[in-house]
């Protein structure tokens, strides 16, 4: 009944054509633009871009924050996932739901709260001044730390969900067996949990890393023009300087990194026995 492959193709084609025309085509053109200098194909655009110090700073900063957020979320994620796994059914469902909840709320709302917390008249500063640790408010907003915290809060649920999902597949009693055989908790983690939850870690790590690289709202609100990341830089270049070449270059970098991470992910997931 499903032999007529062309019939199937016809059903799937509208979606594919829609996305292809509307999406791939314009993006493709955008990405090719930096290669055109005075009507000729050249990589001069890329070279110029790479040599500007600001671009270098932004690029390194974006990568750095991406790794930091991924790493931190992995640590917190494992701790949290382990605790969640050990909860009984009813509580586990509720906690899990609460972890997933933030994902459904607009990033604008989630990031905005940090303004209240980190602002000059915000909670942290009030506490610091109240405790007498400083006479004037410290500048916490528009720093890399602020962006880091914002991104961490944004993507931590993804890591937790991914790890919980993969930890659920741990053989029952494996941790207890390792304990009885003499392993301390560090050894249990390194020798049993980590090898067996590798897939979840890579999935979570990739999602968090690419998410952080391609985030716009959080760096925009918490970093502003003082702490530029690749996406906010892109926006600035286009809006302020009509610099579409830079836009295309940044876009290509971001896509390559996203794509690369996804391929890595498929590789690791595919090697699961």
């Amino acid at each position, binding site marked *: *009944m499903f032999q007529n492959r062309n019939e199937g193709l016809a059903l799937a084609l509208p979606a594919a054509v829609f996305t292809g025309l509307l999406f791939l085509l314009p993006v493709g053109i955008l990405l090719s633009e930096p290669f055109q200098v005075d009507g000729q194909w050249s990589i001069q655009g890329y070279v110029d871009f790479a040599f500007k110090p600001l671009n270098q700073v932004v690029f390194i900063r974006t990568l750095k924050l991406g790794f930091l957020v991924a790493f931190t979320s992995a640590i917190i994620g494992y701790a949290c996932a382990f605790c969640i796994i050990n909860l009984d059914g009813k509580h586990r469902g509720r906690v899990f739901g609460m972890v997933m909840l933030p994902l459904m709320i607009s990033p*604008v709302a989630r990031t905005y709260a940090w303004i209240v917390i980190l602002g000059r008249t915000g909670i942290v500063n009030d506490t610091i001044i109240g405790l007498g640790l400083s006479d004037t408010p410290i500048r916490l907003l528009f720093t890399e730390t602020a962006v880091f915290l914002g991104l961490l809060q944004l993507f*931590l649920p993804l890591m*937790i969900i991914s790890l919980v999902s993969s930890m659920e597949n741990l053989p029952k009693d494996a941790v207890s067996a390792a304990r009885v055989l003499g392993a301390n908790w560090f050894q249990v983690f390194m020798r049993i949990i980590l090898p067996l939850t590798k897939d979840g870690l890579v999935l979570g790590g990739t999602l968090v890393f690419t998410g952080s690289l391609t985030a716009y709202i959080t760096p925009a609100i918490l970093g502003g023009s003082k702490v530029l990341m690749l996406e906010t830089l892109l926006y600035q270049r286009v809006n302020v300087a009509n610099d579409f070449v830079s836009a295309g270059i940044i876009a290509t970098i971001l896509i390559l990194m996203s794509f690369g991470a996804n391929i890595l992910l498929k590789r690791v997931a595919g090697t699961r026995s």
Partner: protein
Amino acid sequence: MTSTWISRMIIFITLAFLIGPFFIIVAAGLSAGDFLAFPPEGLSLKWYIKVFEVESFRESFALSMFLAVFGTITALFLGVPAAYALSRYNIPYGETIKTVVAAPIIVPGIIVGLALLRYLVVPLNLTITLALFLAHTALVLPYAVRVVSSSLNNLRSDMEEAAVLLGCSRIGAFIRVVLPNIQSGVLAAFILGFVTSFNQVPVSLFLSGPGVRTLPIDMLSYMEITYDPSVAALSALLALMSVIIIFVAEKFLGFSRYV
């Protein structure tokens, strides 16, 4: 037992970090003062009320709603046949089509918005609303396909074959056998698409123009002018809306099965 206590603390602190800010916004929006502060100086609903009075918020809310509802419906019209084809047939270029349809998720939204603006909207002189509509549809499509596919994969194809053998036409079989069974999957896809579209910022960033803005973009530009608590109130309301939608979805659909 100390280990349970530690366990509870870890979860509590993590949840506080993740959800705490939400409560802070709600409280900040209740401030009676004129500045954004927490704890709020006095309690008042005036900012929550003001949110409904600001005309640009009303307009952008309407636009966001329109995009979310109709964009998702369109995405489903495109996506359900595609999901059906991908899961039942062994179509030529199947993998390619899968990748193409999933691509919008991989490409950062801001690039999509910019590309659409430069190479589609401007040359073809499309209205901003149309451009936003097309963009949001393309963005929701991958989610729609994924969720409906997952639903279809759980439905065995011999049911349709049985229906056909009993005299149904192919389309009849689809309508009578497949659709009722993937109902909750389609509904789940709708809700997921709705929430994704509504909260979307990067794509809409370049495409929005004066007077034609999605709500999140409107909020961002409002924030550039003033820091008054109305944004906090609005954020809180939006968050509440999302929470209620998801809660209802989970209650009636067992939503988490599909995501």
